[in-house]
Protein backbone atom coordinates (compact mmCIF):
# COMPACT_ATOMS: atom_id res chain seq x y z
CA UNK A 1 0.00 0.00 0.00
CA UNK A 2 1.41 3.36 -0.96
CA UNK A 3 1.37 5.71 2.00
CA UNK A 4 3.00 8.97 2.98
CA UNK A 5 3.54 10.30 6.47
CA UNK A 6 4.59 13.74 7.57
CA UNK A 7 6.09 14.85 10.85
CA UNK A 8 8.52 17.69 11.45
CA UNK A 9 12.13 16.53 11.09
CA UNK A 10 13.05 18.50 14.19
CA UNK A 11 11.16 19.87 17.17
CA UNK A 12 11.75 21.26 20.65
CA UNK A 13 10.98 19.12 23.66
CA UNK A 14 7.43 19.75 24.81
CA UNK A 15 6.37 21.29 21.50
CA UNK A 16 3.02 20.16 20.09
CA UNK A 17 3.63 18.80 16.61
CA UNK A 18 1.26 17.90 13.79
CA UNK A 19 1.34 14.39 12.41
CA UNK A 20 -0.24 13.54 9.06
CA UNK A 21 -0.75 10.36 7.14
CA UNK A 22 -2.22 9.67 3.70
CA UNK A 23 -2.75 6.12 2.43
CA UNK A 24 -3.68 4.99 -1.07
CA UNK A 25 -6.70 2.77 -0.50
CA UNK A 26 -10.14 2.68 -2.15
CA UNK A 27 -11.99 2.32 1.18
CA UNK A 28 -14.52 0.23 -0.72
CA UNK A 29 -17.89 0.67 0.95
CA UNK A 30 -19.51 -2.56 -0.18
CA UNK A 31 -22.40 -0.56 -1.61
CA UNK A 32 -20.96 -0.17 -5.11
CA UNK A 33 -21.58 -2.39 -8.12
CA UNK A 34 -19.28 -3.06 -11.04
CA UNK A 35 -20.32 -2.63 -14.67
CA UNK A 36 -21.64 -6.21 -14.71
CA UNK A 37 -23.90 -5.52 -11.75
CA UNK A 38 -21.85 -7.49 -9.23
CA UNK A 39 -21.47 -6.05 -5.75
CA UNK A 40 -17.91 -4.96 -5.02
CA UNK A 41 -17.05 -6.39 -1.59
CA UNK A 42 -16.48 -4.04 1.32
CA UNK A 43 -12.85 -3.41 2.14
CA UNK A 44 -11.80 -0.47 4.24
CA UNK A 45 -8.81 0.29 6.41
CA UNK A 46 -10.47 -0.38 9.74
CA UNK A 47 -7.74 0.54 12.15
CA UNK A 48 -4.70 2.72 12.33
CA UNK A 49 -2.25 3.02 15.20
CA UNK A 50 0.69 5.31 15.72
CA UNK A 51 3.51 4.65 18.17
CA UNK A 52 6.15 7.17 19.16
CA UNK A 53 9.27 5.57 20.60
CA UNK A 54 7.20 2.49 21.28
CA UNK A 55 4.30 4.15 23.10
CA UNK A 56 0.94 4.46 21.37
CA UNK A 57 0.07 8.12 20.87
CA UNK A 58 -2.88 7.73 18.53
CA UNK A 59 -5.31 5.08 17.43
CA UNK A 60 -8.30 5.21 15.12
CA UNK A 61 -11.11 2.87 14.13
CA UNK A 62 -12.18 3.83 10.65
CA UNK A 63 -15.20 2.86 8.58
CA UNK A 64 -16.59 3.28 5.10
CA UNK A 65 -17.59 6.81 6.07
CA UNK A 66 -13.96 7.83 5.74
CA UNK A 67 -13.18 9.01 2.21
CA UNK A 68 -11.09 6.93 -0.20
CA UNK A 69 -7.34 7.42 0.07
CA UNK A 70 -7.74 8.19 3.75
CA UNK A 71 -6.10 11.19 5.29
CA UNK A 72 -5.73 11.68 9.03
CA UNK A 73 -4.09 14.54 10.89
CA UNK A 74 -3.59 14.69 14.66
CA UNK A 75 -1.22 16.21 17.19
CA UNK A 76 1.23 14.88 19.72
CA UNK A 77 3.74 16.30 22.16
CA UNK A 78 7.38 16.04 21.06
CA UNK A 79 9.30 14.20 23.76
CA UNK A 80 12.51 12.41 22.84
CA UNK A 81 14.31 11.91 19.54
CA UNK A 82 13.31 8.70 17.92
CA UNK A 83 10.85 7.08 15.62
CA UNK A 84 7.21 7.21 14.76
CA UNK A 85 5.75 3.93 13.57
CA UNK A 86 2.43 3.95 11.72
CA UNK A 87 0.57 0.68 11.29
CA UNK A 88 -2.76 -0.08 9.73
CA UNK A 89 -4.87 -2.96 8.49
CA UNK A 90 -7.84 -3.34 6.17
CA UNK A 91 -10.84 -5.71 6.19
CA UNK A 92 -9.03 -8.08 3.82
CA UNK A 93 -6.20 -8.41 6.32
CA UNK A 94 -3.68 -6.40 4.32
CA UNK A 95 -1.29 -4.57 6.57
CA UNK A 96 0.68 -1.44 5.95
CA UNK A 97 3.38 0.38 7.86
CA UNK A 98 5.46 3.50 7.59
CA UNK A 99 8.16 5.01 9.76
CA UNK A 100 9.51 8.49 10.27
CA UNK A 101 12.27 9.84 12.47
CA UNK A 102 12.32 12.96 14.55
CA UNK A 103 15.17 14.81 16.27
CA UNK A 104 14.31 16.63 19.47
CA UNK A 105 16.31 19.50 20.87
CA UNK A 106 16.14 21.06 24.33
Amino acid at each position, binding site marked *: MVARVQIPQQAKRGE*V*IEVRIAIQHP*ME*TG*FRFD*LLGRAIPKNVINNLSVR*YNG*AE*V*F*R*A*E*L*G*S*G*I*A*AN*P*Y*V*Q*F*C*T*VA*EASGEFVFEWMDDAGQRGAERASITISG
Partner: protein
Amino acid sequence: MGAPARRRFISVLAGLAAAPLWPGRAARAQDDPFAPLLRKITGGATVNPGRVTVDTPRLADNGHSVPLKVSVVSPMTAADHVRSITLLSGRNPRPLIATFHLGPKAGRPEVATRVRLNGSQRVLAVAQLSDGSYWSGSAEVEVTESACLDAS
Protein backbone atom coordinates in the same frame (compact mmCIF):
# COMPACT_ATOMS: atom_id res chain seq x y z
CA MET B 1 -74.48 22.36 34.54
CA GLY B 2 -74.61 20.85 38.03
CA ALA B 3 -71.67 21.25 40.53
CA PRO B 4 -70.18 17.71 40.02
CA ALA B 5 -70.30 18.13 36.20
CA ARG B 6 -68.69 21.58 36.52
CA ARG B 7 -65.87 20.12 38.65
CA ARG B 8 -65.36 17.31 36.11
CA PHE B 9 -65.31 19.85 33.28
CA ILE B 10 -62.74 22.03 35.09
CA SER B 11 -60.53 19.00 35.88
CA VAL B 12 -60.66 17.95 32.20
CA LEU B 13 -59.65 21.48 31.18
CA ALA B 14 -56.80 21.38 33.72
CA GLY B 15 -55.68 18.04 32.30
CA LEU B 16 -55.64 19.47 28.79
CA ALA B 17 -53.61 22.48 29.94
CA ALA B 18 -51.04 20.19 31.53
CA ALA B 19 -50.54 18.08 28.40
CA PRO B 20 -48.67 20.18 25.79
CA LEU B 21 -50.19 20.44 22.33
CA TRP B 22 -46.77 20.00 20.71
CA PRO B 23 -43.86 17.92 22.04
CA GLY B 24 -41.35 19.56 24.39
CA ARG B 25 -37.59 19.10 24.23
CA ALA B 26 -37.63 15.72 25.95
CA ALA B 27 -40.00 14.24 23.40
CA ARG B 28 -38.03 15.86 20.50
CA ALA B 29 -34.84 14.14 21.68
CA GLN B 30 -36.54 10.82 21.01
CA ASP B 31 -36.91 11.89 17.38
CA ASP B 32 -33.16 12.64 17.28
CA PRO B 33 -31.70 10.17 14.74
CA PHE B 34 -28.47 10.04 16.69
CA ALA B 35 -30.08 9.08 19.99
CA PRO B 36 -30.10 5.25 19.69
CA LEU B 37 -26.50 5.08 18.47
CA LEU B 38 -25.37 7.58 21.10
CA ARG B 39 -27.01 5.47 23.79
CA LYS B 40 -24.97 2.49 22.61
CA ILE B 41 -21.76 4.48 22.51
CA THR B 42 -22.13 6.20 25.87
CA GLY B 43 -23.93 3.39 27.65
CA GLY B 44 -26.81 5.74 28.29
CA ALA B 45 -24.69 8.54 29.77
CA THR B 46 -25.78 12.07 28.92
CA VAL B 47 -24.13 13.77 26.00
CA ASN B 48 -23.73 17.47 26.74
CA PRO B 49 -23.84 19.81 23.77
CA GLY B 50 -20.74 22.02 23.81
CA ARG B 51 -16.94 22.16 23.85
CA VAL B 52 -16.77 20.35 20.52
CA THR B 53 -16.45 22.19 17.21
CA VAL B 54 -16.94 20.49 13.87
CA ASP B 55 -15.26 22.44 11.09
CA THR B 56 -16.42 21.37 7.64
CA PRO B 57 -17.65 23.21 4.54
CA ARG B 58 -21.28 24.30 4.55
CA LEU B 59 -21.52 23.14 0.93
CA ALA B 60 -19.47 20.07 0.04
CA ASP B 61 -17.73 19.95 -3.35
CA ASN B 62 -18.47 16.26 -3.61
CA GLY B 63 -19.95 13.81 -1.14
CA HIS B 64 -17.15 11.34 -1.81
CA SER B 65 -14.59 13.45 0.04
CA VAL B 66 -15.44 16.22 2.49
CA PRO B 67 -12.71 17.74 4.67
CA LEU B 68 -13.63 17.70 8.34
CA LYS B 69 -11.84 18.83 11.47
CA VAL B 70 -12.95 18.33 15.06
CA SER B 71 -11.53 20.34 17.93
CA VAL B 72 -12.42 20.11 21.61
CA VAL B 73 -11.94 22.59 24.43
CA SER B 74 -9.64 20.79 26.86
CA PRO B 75 -6.36 21.58 28.66
CA MET B 76 -5.00 18.14 27.62
CA THR B 77 -3.30 17.46 30.93
CA ALA B 78 -2.94 14.06 32.53
CA ALA B 79 -5.84 14.93 34.81
CA ASP B 80 -8.09 16.53 32.22
CA HIS B 81 -7.93 15.49 28.59
CA VAL B 82 -9.91 14.09 25.66
CA ARG B 83 -9.93 10.31 25.52
CA SER B 84 -11.72 9.88 22.22
CA ILE B 85 -13.63 11.62 19.47
CA THR B 86 -16.36 9.75 17.60
CA LEU B 87 -17.85 10.93 14.32
CA LEU B 88 -21.45 10.11 13.49
CA SER B 89 -23.38 10.66 10.30
CA GLY B 90 -27.02 11.60 10.22
CA ARG B 91 -27.62 10.04 6.84
CA ASN B 92 -24.95 7.54 5.80
CA PRO B 93 -25.91 3.87 5.54
CA ARG B 94 -23.39 3.24 8.31
CA PRO B 95 -23.80 6.07 10.81
CA LEU B 96 -20.57 5.40 12.70
CA ILE B 97 -17.88 7.11 10.64
CA ALA B 98 -14.83 6.75 12.88
CA THR B 99 -13.48 6.85 16.40
CA PHE B 100 -10.20 8.57 17.19
CA HIS B 101 -8.40 7.77 20.44
CA LEU B 102 -6.28 10.57 21.84
CA GLY B 103 -4.96 10.82 25.41
CA PRO B 104 -2.91 13.39 27.35
CA LYS B 105 0.12 13.07 25.02
CA ALA B 106 -1.95 14.42 22.14
CA GLY B 107 -1.10 17.98 23.03
CA ARG B 108 -3.92 19.53 21.04
CA PRO B 109 -7.39 17.97 21.06
CA GLU B 110 -7.86 18.11 17.30
CA VAL B 111 -8.34 15.58 14.55
CA ALA B 112 -8.74 16.24 10.83
CA THR B 113 -9.74 13.82 8.10
CA ARG B 114 -11.88 13.52 4.96
CA VAL B 115 -15.29 11.87 5.18
CA ARG B 116 -17.87 10.48 2.81
CA LEU B 117 -21.32 12.02 3.16
CA ASN B 118 -24.26 10.31 1.53
CA GLY B 119 -26.27 13.43 0.89
CA SER B 120 -27.01 16.61 2.83
CA GLN B 121 -26.96 15.92 6.54
CA ARG B 122 -25.83 16.77 10.01
CA VAL B 123 -22.52 15.34 11.19
CA LEU B 124 -22.12 14.87 14.94
CA ALA B 125 -18.84 14.64 16.83
CA VAL B 126 -18.88 13.20 20.35
CA ALA B 127 -15.89 13.60 22.62
CA GLN B 128 -15.31 11.55 25.74
CA LEU B 129 -13.24 13.31 28.37
CA SER B 130 -10.98 11.73 30.94
CA ASP B 131 -13.62 12.26 33.65
CA GLY B 132 -15.98 10.05 31.68
CA SER B 133 -18.24 12.86 30.53
CA TYR B 134 -19.44 13.20 26.94
CA TRP B 135 -19.66 16.39 24.92
CA SER B 136 -20.87 16.97 21.40
CA GLY B 137 -20.82 19.40 18.51
CA SER B 138 -22.27 19.17 15.04
CA ALA B 139 -22.33 20.75 11.62
CA GLU B 140 -24.87 20.78 8.79
CA VAL B 141 -23.44 20.00 5.37
CA GLU B 142 -25.18 20.38 2.01
CA VAL B 143 -24.09 17.71 -0.43
CA THR B 144 -25.10 17.83 -4.08
CA GLU B 145 -24.73 15.36 -6.91
CA SER B 146 -22.21 15.98 -9.65
CA ALA B 147 -23.74 17.94 -12.55
CA CYS B 148 -22.99 15.27 -15.12
CA LEU B 149 -23.18 11.52 -14.62
CA ASP B 150 -19.83 9.83 -15.02
CA ALA B 151 -19.30 6.21 -15.93
CA SER B 152 -15.84 6.75 -17.39
